[in-house]
């Protein structure tokens, strides 16, 4: 019988089951911490200060990001332990399935579980406060944008989880800071070269054109940055993670 060496749905499902079994203790404790925190914040606000109860959504988002990125940075911890890595590497599952399985757990499954339970807690806190449940506020307070942003940023942490052997979370954050500083310096240098007084003269730009050029550049930069962030960064980091995983040895 020929075996599909790239992707098999059943194998993918089995791999996700296996991951839940391997990390069950860690993830149960993490989930208990996260949801206890949500309960504490929500019920505390419901009892002590029930006005504007939907304000708690800001805290939910913070916990959602922090919890999700920590979970992501730990999803390949088996890979970095000399006593455990052999089991993952020799498991008859393709590299694509290992990556997809880990992504599914830390992105769509995590998002679904987090927001479903959060919604239940949110509704419960309104009931405790004796207020009508503001369902619309829950969904219209930038929830979609937060989820989309998480899904992009999460891929960077997924790569960090494959690449860094220890302290993946902190090292990924450090890499991001470094990247932002370098991008900022590059952009600053570029702006300085193009728009400082001397160079405006060098490029022979008169004052009317200068204002137009400024606006055009701003629009161009904004558009490019948005396109790079929303459409390129996520898939690119997933691709990087795939090759990092493929080339990884014990």
């Amino acid at each position, binding site marked *: *019988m020929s*075996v599909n060496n790239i992707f098999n749905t059943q*194998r993918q499902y089995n791999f996700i089951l296996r991951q839940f079994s391997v990390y*069950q203790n860690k993830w149960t404790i993490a989930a208990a911490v996260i949801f206890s925190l949500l309960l504490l914040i929500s019920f505390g606000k419901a009892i002590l200060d029930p006005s504007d109860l939907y304000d708690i959504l800001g805290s939910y988002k913070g916990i959602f990001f922090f919890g999700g990125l920590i979970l992501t940075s730990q999803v390949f911890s088996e890979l970095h332990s*000399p006593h455990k890595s*052999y089991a993952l*590497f020799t498991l*008859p599952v393709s590299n694509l399935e290992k990556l997809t399985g880990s992504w599914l757990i830390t992105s769509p499954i995590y998002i679904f579980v987090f927001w479903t339970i959060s919604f239940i807690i949110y509704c419960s806190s309104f009931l405790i406060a004796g207020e009508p449940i503001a369902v619309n506020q829950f969904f219209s307070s930038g929830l979609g944008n937060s989820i989309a942003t998480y899904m992009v940023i999460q891929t960077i942490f997924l790569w960090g989880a494959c690449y860094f052997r220890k302290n993946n979370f902190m090292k990924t954050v450090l890499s991001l800071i470094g990247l932002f500083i370098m991008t900022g310096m590059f952009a600053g240098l570029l702006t300085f070269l193009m728009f400082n007084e001397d160079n405006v003269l060098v490029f022979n730009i008169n004052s009317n054109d200068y204002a137009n050029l400024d606006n055009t550049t701003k629009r161009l930069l904004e558009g490019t940055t948005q396109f790079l962030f929303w459409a390129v960064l996520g898939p690119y980091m997933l691709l990087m993670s795939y090759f990092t995983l493929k080339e990884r040895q*014990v």
Partner: protein
Amino acid sequence: MVELINIDFRYKKKKPLFRDLNLQLSGGSIYGLLGKNGAGKTSLLKHISGLLFPNGGECLVNGQRVSERLPEVLQDIYVIPEEFALPPVSIDRYARINGLFYPDFNRDQLNHYLQEFELNTDEKLSSMSYGQKKKFLISFGLATNARLLILDEPTNGLDIPSKSQFRKIIASALTEEKLMIISTHQVRDLENLIDTVLVLESGQIIFNHNIATISEKLRFMQDVKAIPAGEVLYSEEGAGRKAGIVKNTSQLESRVDLEILFNGIIKNPAAIEAQLSKQNDYVC
């Protein structure tokens, strides 16, 4: 089944571990991989199982590059490392979840091996001792029916009755299409078990002979003092005796002492190799 072609490998730039290493292993055999500390036995096993990639050359299992880590190749390989950690689940749950990845996994077989090793399926892996965990991993590995089974120091941590159980189980599990590679320092545990002896030294396989040839051409003696010097291939002083290896000129097969054989190969490989390569010269 396993083919290593011109393998070059180094951990550090100026310190190569394997240089142009070649090796061919075929099914239906149990290979005993011996070598001194740091000779590279574990690294060699890691290459064969796709855990390490060579800097040069290629490692094939069933004709496919193992470094690609394709599910088709990996479902026919099971590795039991010397040091390992198991998840905090019961034997039963572990088997249900991990058995799914191996198409020939047989639950009845696993239960049989567990019974032989006196392990309870309801027990949690995290509450077991190192030896019990090892016995479980050996049982699970055998029950996957993977055609290539790699065992690194499998008898470390096993008690005396378990060691003999281990030998019995391994011998009974071998079929024509299976290949087992056992790396160990506990050579006594492998006696009467392995078919072929491999010795790794200075990045090369310096010895690769089957037990039948060895026992036919070499004789292992606890005291070689009375043997003419020309017949002695290797000897070592100990406890008032001079144990050693001599030429086997009789038609009788000699019992192979792996410890003396290993020492002889390391100290005087040329003489032993010459005797094994020689045509039979029986004195009738």
